[in-house]
């Protein structure tokens, strides 16, 4: 019961924030609403026992990636976006299509989910850091290392891309911190 309430509360918050993300015409508002979405998703993760992921969701997404977004928005001082006919066409076509699609998927899932498994907070299943770590460093060791390499490449790419032409990227290239923050 309590979980249901919590689910609906945060689910509605998430959806509303997502809608707000689209509705807002200023990127920074969109960014903030996206942060809200992420935070509420983190609580939903907690509801499903993925506490480590919840924390990581906050730290990485909200704390690092979105900071990066906000930072770039501030840096470029991106103004209010202007309307173009193309976007109007996209709206006319896209909104119904997406609504239809999501609706059908939702309907299929609700109506025909063969596993109506209940989710309750007191279920013994908890994604504790140690459990995740065991999987991560034993079964998924290779992918983990590969992703670390990916991160490294991403850092270098970001530095090269963002550094003004000619100058070698010095320290304090703002792209670095979030990319690092994963490890």
């Amino acid at each position, binding site marked *: 019961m309590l979980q249901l309430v919590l689910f609906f509360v945060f689910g509605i918050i998430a959806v509303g924030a997502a809608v707000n993300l*689209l509705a807002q015409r200023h990127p920074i508002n969109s960014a903030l609403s996206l942060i809200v979405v992420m935070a509420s998703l983190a609580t939903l993760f907690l509801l499903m026992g993925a506490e480590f992921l919840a924390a990581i969701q906050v730290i990485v997404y909200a704390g690092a990636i979105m900071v990066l977004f906000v930072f*770039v928005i501030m840096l470029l001082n991106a103004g209010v976006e202007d309307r173009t006919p193309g976007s109007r066409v996209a709206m006319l076509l896209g909104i119904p299509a997406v609504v239809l699609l999501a609706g059908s998927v939702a309907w299929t899932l609700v109506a025909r989910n063969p596993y109506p498994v209940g989710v*309750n907070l007191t279920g013994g299943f908890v994604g504790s850091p140690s459990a995740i770590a065991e999987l991560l460093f034993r079964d998924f060791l290779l992918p983990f290392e590969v992703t670390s390499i990916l991160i490294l490449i991403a850092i270098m790419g970001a530095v090269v891309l963002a550094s003004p032409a000619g100058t070698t990227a010095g320290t304090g290239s703002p792209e670095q911190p979030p990319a690092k923050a994963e490890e």
Partner: protein
Amino acid sequence: MVPVAYYLVLSAILFGLGVLGFLVKRNLITLFMSIELMLNAVNLAFVAFAWQWKSLNGQVFVFFVMVVAAAEAAVGLAIIIAVFRTRETLNVDKVNLLKL
């Protein structure tokens, strides 16, 4: 008791909103945020399934998704900065050198 289906539906809705955002918005950074939104929806689905099958692999997957998202954000934003530096705009409709 919350059926897993609810979480899946929620993730479906969020994903749809992300797609819609990508289609509708014109600001490069907002497009990126839409992508992140989709990724989050996917993460939610992963966690839900992980819960349904009582298996942590789904959560590990989410972990990887986050890592990739972080890398993607870093590079993507760097690209955005480069684009802005050259074209003085973030409007995707104005960044259309590929048009024939």
